[in-house]
C-alpha cells in the first residue's frame, strides 16, 4: 500500500489523532491531498445517508439491502480507513451474504459506532 505523505498533512496523519481514518493511505491512493479531500467529501455525504439505512434495513429484517450497503462500504474502505476498520467491515459484509438479520445485527452492533467515528474523523479532517 502506498503511504505517500505530504508536508501539509502532518497534523492529520499521526496515528494518535485518527483511529478509523487513514489519511496517509488515502492520499497515496488518490495521488494528492486535494483529490483525497474531494473523495472524503463524497464519502461523508454517502456515509451520512447510508448509515441510517443500514440500521433501518437490519431492524426491518431486510438483509439484502444491508448487504448492498455494506458491500459498497467494503469497496471503498481500503481507500480511507484503518486496517482494523477494513477488517471489521469485510467480516460483517461477508456475514450479511448468508446470515439472518438478527445475526447480522449483532455483528454490526460494534461496527456501527466505528463507522460513526470514521464520519466524525472525516469531518474533522475536512474542517
Amino acid at each position, binding site marked *: 500500500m502506498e503511504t505517500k505523505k505530504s508536508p501539509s498533512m502532518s497534523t492529520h496523519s499521526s496515528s494518535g489523532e485518527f483511529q478509523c481514518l487513514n489519511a496517509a493511505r488515502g492520499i497515496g491512493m488518490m495521488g494528492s491531498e486535494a483529490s483525497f479531500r474531494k473523495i472524503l467529501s463524497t464519502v461523508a455525504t454517502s456515509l451520512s445517508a447510508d448509515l441510517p439505512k443500514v440500521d433501518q434495513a437490519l431492524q426491518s429484517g431486510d438483509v439484502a439491502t444491508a448487504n*448492498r450497503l455494506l458491500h*459498497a462500504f467494503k469497496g*471503498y474502505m481500503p481507500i480511507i480507513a484503518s486496517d482494523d476498520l477494513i477488517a471489521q467491515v469485510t467480516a460483517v459484509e461477508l456475514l450479511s451474504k448468508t446470515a439472518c438479520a438478527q445475526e447480522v445485527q449483532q455483528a454490526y452492533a460494534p461496527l456501527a459506532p466505528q463507522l460513526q467515528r470514521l464520519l466524525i474523523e472525516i469531518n474533522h479532517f475536512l474542517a
Partner: protein
Amino acid sequence: MTGMALSLARILVVEDDPVMREYVVNSLRRLGIQQIDTATDGASALRAMISFRPDLVLTDIHMQPMDGLAFVQQMRQHSNPAVSAMKVIFMSADNSMDTLGQAMPPGTFGYIVKPPRLETLKARIEQALR
C-alpha cells in the same frame, strides 16, 4: 505496449457507488486517460455506449436496477456490432471470481478487485487495449 496509447483511450466507467466512481475516474486521470464517461447502472451505460463510443468499459457487477452481468449480456446482443463486441473489464469488491459464476463472459478482459491499485488498473487496461 503495442496497442492504443492510454492518453487516446476512451473509457466508460459503470459504477453505482459515487465514492468508487470518483476513485476509478481519479485513477484513470492519473494514468493519463482524459476521455472518460461515467454511468451509474446498466441501462444508462447502454445509452452511453452509443453516445460516447468507448474503447473499453470498466463495469461494477453489483448495481441496481440492472447489474453488470445483465448489462454485458444485453450489450453482447446489441444490433450495433461496435457495441456488441465491446471490451469489458469487471470490477467487484469481492476478492474472488465467485461473483461471476463459473465462467467469465465472452469478451471480458479480466476482473479487478475494488479499489484497484493504480498499477493493476494500468496493466489490465493496457492488456485490453492491445
